[in-house]
C-alpha cells in the first residue's frame, strides 16, 4: 500500500520536527536555570579550579547555541552525557530503568482499552438507562483521583486488608531471571520459568490497575459519546429498518467508526500514563524510571533530566505513530489531510 507509506513518512517527519522542538525546549529550560550545574555537581567544597575544569568539559562557558550544537552532535552518536548523580552514562541509566516503566505502562494501556471501550459501548447501547448512569459515575470517579490515590486505595484493599496481591516490587526476590529484554514478562518466558512469569504478572496487576483507572474512565466516556453520535447517522437507521439485530448493529455498525476518535485520545492518554507511572511507581516501590527521575530532578542533574524527558517524549511519539497506523488500518478512508490536527 503506497499511500500508507506516504502517511507513515509524513508522520515520521512531523514527529521528528516535534522531537527536535522537544529537545530545544528542554535544553533551554535546563540551561537558563539559576545556579551553576558544575558547582552543584562537585559540591560546595570543590576548588574553583575543579569547577572551572568541569565547566570547560561540559562546554558551559560557550554560548547556548554552541552548547546545543554539542548536545545534538553527541545525541546523534548515542551519547546523552554522563549523569552527575550516578557517574554513569545517562543512556545506560535510562536503559536500565525504562523497561520496568514501559512494562507497567503497556499493561495499563491494555487494561484501559480492554475495559474502557466495552464499558463505553455498553453505556451507549443502553443510553439513559440505569446501567448508563452507573458507568458514567464510575468513569467520572476514575478520572477524579490522581493515580497515587488509587494506588494507595487499591493497595490498602487488595494487599493489606485482603492479602491477595503482593504489596510492592516487580517479582519475588527468590527468582533470579537473566535480563534479556528488561521486560520481566518476556524474560521469564525466555528463561522458561513459568512460575516466575506468573509471579511477575501477579505483581503487575495492582500497579497497572491504579495507573489504568483514569484512562478507563476517559476511554469509556469518549467511546460512549462517539457511539451515540454514530447511532444518529442515517446508515444505522437503514440497518435498523432492514431488521438487523440490535446486537449486530451495535457491534458491527456503530462500534467500529467510533473507535477512531477514541484511539487518537488513547494515544494522548499514553503520555499521561508515562507521567503518572512516576506516581504509581513511588507507591508500589516499582524499580522503574520514577525513582531515578525524581532523584536527578532534586539534584539538578542536567544531562540526566534532559535525557529522561527526551526518551519519554520519544516513546510517546513512537506510540502515537503506531496509533495513527492502526487508525489507517481500521479505516481506509482516513487520509493524512483529515488527520492533521
Amino acid at each position, binding site marked *: 500500500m503506497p499511500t500508507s507509506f506516504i502517511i507513515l513518512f509524513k508522520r515520521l517527519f*512531523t514527529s521528528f*520536527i*516535534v*522531537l527536535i*522542538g*522537544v529537545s530545544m*525546549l*528542554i535544553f533551554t*529550560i*535546563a540551561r537558563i*536555570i*539559576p545556579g551553576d550545574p558544575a558547582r552543584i555537581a562537585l559540591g560546595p567544597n570543590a576548588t574553583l579550579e575543579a569547577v572551572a575544569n568541569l565547566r570547560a568539559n561540559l562546554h558551559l562557558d560557550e554560548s547556548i547555541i554552541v552548547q546545543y550544537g554539542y548536545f545534538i552532535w553527541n545525541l546523534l552518536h548515542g551519547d546523552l552525557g554522563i549523569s552527575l548523580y550516578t557517574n554513569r552514562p545517562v543512556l545506560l541509566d535510562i536503559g536500565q530503568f525504562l523497561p520496568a516503566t514501559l512494562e507497567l505502562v503497556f499493561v495499563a494501556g491494555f487494561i484501559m482499552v480492554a475495559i474502557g471501550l466495552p464499558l463505553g459501548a455498553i453505556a451507549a447501547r443502553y443510553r439513559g438507562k440505569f446501567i448508563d*448512569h452507573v458507568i*458514567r*459515575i464510575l468513569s*467520572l*470517579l476514575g*478520572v*477524579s*483521583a*490522581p493515580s*497515587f*490515590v488509587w494506588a*494507595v*486505595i487499591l*493497595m*490498602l484493599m487488595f494487599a*493489606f*486488608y485482603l492479602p491477595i496481591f503482593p504489596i510492592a516490587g516487580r517479582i519475588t526476590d527468590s527468582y533470579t531471571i537473566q535480563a534479556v529484554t528488561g521486560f520481566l514478562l518476556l524474560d521469564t518466558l525466555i528463561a522458561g520459568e513459568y512460575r516466575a512469569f506468573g509471579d511477575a504478572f501477579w505483581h503487575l496487576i495492582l500497579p497497572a490497575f491504579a495507573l489504568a483507572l483514569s484512562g478507563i474512565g476517559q476511554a469509556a466516556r469518549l467511546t460512549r*459519546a462517539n457511539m451515540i453520535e454514530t447511532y444518529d447517522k442515517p446508515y444505522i437507521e437503514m440497518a435498523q429498518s432492514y431488521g438487523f439485530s440490535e446486537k449486530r448493529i451495535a457491534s458491527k455498525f456503530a462500534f467500529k467508526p467510533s473507535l477512531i476518535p477514541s484511539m487518537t485520545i488513547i494515544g*494522548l492518554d499514553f*503520555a*499521561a*500514563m*508515562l*507521567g*503518572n507511572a*512516576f*506516581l504509581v511507581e*513511588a*507507591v508500589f516501590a516499582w524499580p522503574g524510571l520514577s525513582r531515578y*527521575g*525524581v532523584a*536527578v*530532578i*532534586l539534584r*539538578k542533574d542536567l544531562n540526566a*533530566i534532559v535525557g*529522561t*524527558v527526551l526518551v*519519554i*517524549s520519544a516513546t*510517546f*511519539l513512537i506510540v*502515537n505513530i503506531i496509533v495513527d497506523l492502526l487508525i489507517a488500518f481500521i479505516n481506509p478512508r482516513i487520509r493524512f489531510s483529515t488527520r492533521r*490536527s
Partner: protein
Amino acid sequence: MKRIIFILLSNPLSLLGLFLVTLVIILAIFADFIAPFPEHRGAVVDFVNFNKAPEWPYIMGTDLVGRDIFSRIIYAYRISLLLGVFVLSIAVPIGVTMGLIAGYMGGKTEYILMRITDVFLSIPPLVLAMSIMGLLEPTLINGMLAVTVMWWPWYTRLVYNIARSEKEEGYVLAAEIIGASKTHIIFREILPNCLPAIVTKMTLDFGFVILIASSLSFLGLGVQPPTPDLGSMVAGGATYLPDSWWLTVFPGLAILVAVFGFNLVGDALRDVLGAD
C-alpha cells in the same frame, strides 16, 4: 441562561456536583472560621495528641506531629483553588488566542503554531512540570508557573479545531465581505462561538489542576511543608500504611471529592451547552 440553570438543577448528578463544588469553595474561603484548629495549618507540634485515629475533636485523626488533619485539608483546599484560579487565568487567554490565530489564519502561521503546541503536548504533562519544578526552586509560585506552562496547549488545540470549522461559516464570510478587520473577526465573531467549549473545559480543568498540583507535591516537587497540601499529606502518610490509614485515606478522599465535584458540573455543562 435560565434554561441552563434549570437543567443543571433538575439533574441529581449535576446537583451533587454543584453541592460538592460549593462546599469546597465555602470551606476554602471561610477556612479560618470553619477549621477546628486554624493554627494547625502551620508548623505546630503537639506531641500529646500525635498520630491519633479519628475521634472527637479530631474527626479525621491527627498527623505525626499532632496536627488536626481535617483543619489541614481545609487549608489545603484554599491553596489548591488559588492555584487553579492562577493557572487558568494565565493559561486560558494565551492558549485561546494562539488557537484562534492558528485556526483562522491557516497557512504557515497555523503550521508553526500547531507544531509548537505539539512539542508541548508530546512531553507528558507531569514530566514537563516536574522538570521545570526541579530546575527552579520548589516554591508555590514556581509550582504555579510550571503547571501553567503545560496547560495552555490544550486550549490552543481545542479552540483551533473549532475556529477552523467556524471560519467556513457564512457569518465569518459576511464579516469579511463588509471589510471587518482580522482582529474583529477573530475576537468578536469566532471567539463567542468557542465560549461554550472553553467554559466547559475550564470547569473540568479546575479539578485537573488540583489533581496535577497534588501529584507534584506527592513527589516532593510542589508546595513545600509546613504549608498544607493534599498530595504531600498522602505521600507523608503512605509509609505508615495500613496502621495509620487516616494519614493517607482522608487527604486522598479530599482530592477525590473536590475533583469529582468539578467533573460532575463540567460533564453536565458539556451536555447542556452541547460543547465537545
